């Protein structure tokens, strides 16, 4: 590899990037917008579910029970209902997610120790179902209730004791943002020059394939690290997301993900015939990354084949690293399997991209 040619490609990329206002805005705009949006919007602790209560008993005990239920904040009454039928109708129309039916013989059931209330749940949303399960765990009113029992298992929450979603989301967002922007930068890099005709000129020069590829990747590593910094700073300032491990490890993990995504983007760019095709292929990578990596849903809950797919995605490994380092205070050395996986991914993608690229037009 010739240093003069490599540097020339890097300088050229940076000069072009500086003049490309939209891309330049994307460098800072995407992390800020996504962090604000997801940081505030994604909340896995459900509160304020629209609900209705049909209290057919209407005794002082049943009214006390309903008051307790509402005090939890999980549900919020949005309409009046008198019969179970009305609850069913409202549920189907989507007006409420949860209907609480208190039967006419509530007091008697309470004394007998039978089921006292029925909770109707809109099961079309899993998150609502699990919130309803929380409701079912509520003790019945009255100290003497037989429903009130000791929990057989005690659970201790480490690392995120007050269960704030942002603590989980923000480190993952670094990965999602880097996956989105980095793959995009390089996915169009080669194909754009082919579309504009630059490539025909470049391949008629002594410029080596590796110089072109590496020269296109390296400037974006710096940009990726800037993006990671923006997310970390805003995460700390706005959402009090801790960095329990070493900051160096955070950046090292980010650097690995950046390289992995840039290399993947280059490979896409050598395969795509047009910028539009490159975008389509990018979406094909991006969706599984978001859905299977463990960013949205727990990895452990996925079936085996989905886990295999997820293991092939850089974001999956990055999430394990970044949550390990930022939240659990682990070191990268302890998390070596995921570091290794990212390293292998980078080398493989880069090698494939260089091999696939031909200094010819046919």
């Amino acid at each position: 590899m010739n240093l003069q040619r490599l540097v020339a490609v890097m300088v050229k990329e940076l000069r072009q990037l500086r003049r490309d206002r939209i891309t330049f805005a994307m460098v800072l705009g995407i992390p800020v917008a996504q962090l604000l949006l997801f940081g505030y919007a994604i909340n896995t602790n459900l509160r304020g579910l629209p609900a209705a209560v049909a209290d057919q008993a209407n005794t002082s005990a049943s009214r006390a029970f309903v008051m307790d239920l509402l005090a939890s904040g999980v549900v919020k009454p949005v309409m009046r209902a008198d019969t179970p039928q009305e609850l069913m109708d409202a549920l189907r129309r989507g007006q409420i997610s949860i209907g609480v039916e208190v039967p006419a013989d509530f007091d008697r059931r309470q004394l007998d120790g039978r089921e006292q209330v029925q909770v109707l749940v809109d099961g079309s949303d899993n998150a609502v179902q699990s919130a309803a399960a929380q409701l079912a765990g509520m003790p019945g009113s009255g100290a003497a209730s037989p429903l009130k029992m000791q929990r057989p298992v005690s659970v201790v929450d480490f690392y995120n004791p007050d269960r704030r979603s942002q603590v989980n989301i923000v480190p993952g967002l670094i990965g999602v943002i880097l996956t989105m922007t980095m793959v995009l930068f390089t996915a169009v890099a080669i194909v754009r020059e082919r579309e504009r005709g630059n490539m025909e000129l470049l391949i008629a020069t002594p410029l080596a394939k590796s110089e072109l590829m590496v020269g296109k990747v390296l400037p974006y590593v710096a940009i990726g690290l800037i993006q990671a910094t923006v997310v970390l700073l805003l995460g700390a300032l706005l959402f009090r997301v801790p960095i329990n491990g070493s900051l160096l490890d955070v950046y090292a993990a980010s650097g690995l993900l950046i390289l992995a995504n840039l290399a993947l983007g280059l490979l896409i760019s050598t395969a795509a015939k047009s910028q539009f095709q490159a975008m389509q292929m990018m979406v094909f990578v991006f969706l599984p990354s978001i859905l299977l990596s463990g960013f949205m849903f727990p990895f452990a809950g996925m079936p085996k084949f989905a886990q295999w797919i997820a293991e092939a995605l850089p974001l999956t490994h990055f999430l394990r690293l970044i949550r390990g380092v930022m939240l659990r205070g682990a070191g990268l050395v302890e998390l070596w399997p995921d570091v290794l996986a990212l390293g292998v991914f980078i080398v493989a993608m880069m090698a494939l991209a260089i091999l696939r690229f031909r200094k010819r037009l046919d």
Partner: protein
Amino acid sequence: MSAPDATGVAIHTRGLTKRFGSLVAVDHVDLDVPKRSVYGFLGPNGSGKSTTIRMLCGLLMPSEGDIQVLGLPIPKDAEALRRRIGYMTQKFSLFDDLTVRENLEFMAAIQDVPRLMLKSRVDALVAQFHFGDMQGQLAGTMSGGQKQRLALAVAIVHTPELLFLDEPTSAVDPESRRDFWDRLFELADGGTTLLVSTHYMDEAERCHALAILDQGRLVANGTPADLTAALQGRTLMVSASQPRQVRHALTGQPGILSVAQIGNTLRVLGDGQGDPSGDVRDALAKAGIQAELSAIEPNLEDVFVAATHPADATKVHG
């Protein structure tokens, strides 16, 4: 215009062929381009000029045939050749979002111009091509003629021995074209070999030697003078008050290869089977048209028509 120096051959091909699926883009072309000359590739669009140039540069794999460029077997030694050639693509292929100077600097760096000489080389080209006051201008905002000048400056940034120019003047005005050709001859005088493709007859006439391509085949080659001399006696000028009627009467007649109207006169090319004036007179008499005949010097357009339609009088041209 000095005769080409015959000390060596820059490009040598035998049986050069390129197929794209069932289409034969270049069909068994044998070329010998002497060094230190301006060699023209004349042919209509789709005749295989660009494909041939790309194969000579090592950018396309030939389907068949042998290529030697500057003594190197191509495509085997294409990488070694790249240091010694310059290539000006048909479409402007520099970076629109880099300035004139940045484009020159970038291409100088990847063409292995030594770092210490890079600045002085770029300065020299800026002066030579009159870019002094527009070094900081983005290439994308320049006019067609300026872009073409920049593309030529970039193509010679590493002082190549051999320069390929693929229809370099297709997007520029006549004055820029004249300037451009002056520069090409300067380069040839300096020892560079130039291969220029064009579909302009007047540009082809300026070349030291040229090859005429049609549908992938090399149909004629030689110096412009030799090529036109071979048609001596086959060209006639017909003047008449009703040129369109004359054209109608002559087109497709035996012994007449083509009839082209030029203002109020007609240019007639015979099929080479003897003097065409007898055939013309017969055809005019049959149609009852009065016209004057005179001899006229053949030009490259006649060469092109004669070469692409050898003795096939049934086709209509004009």
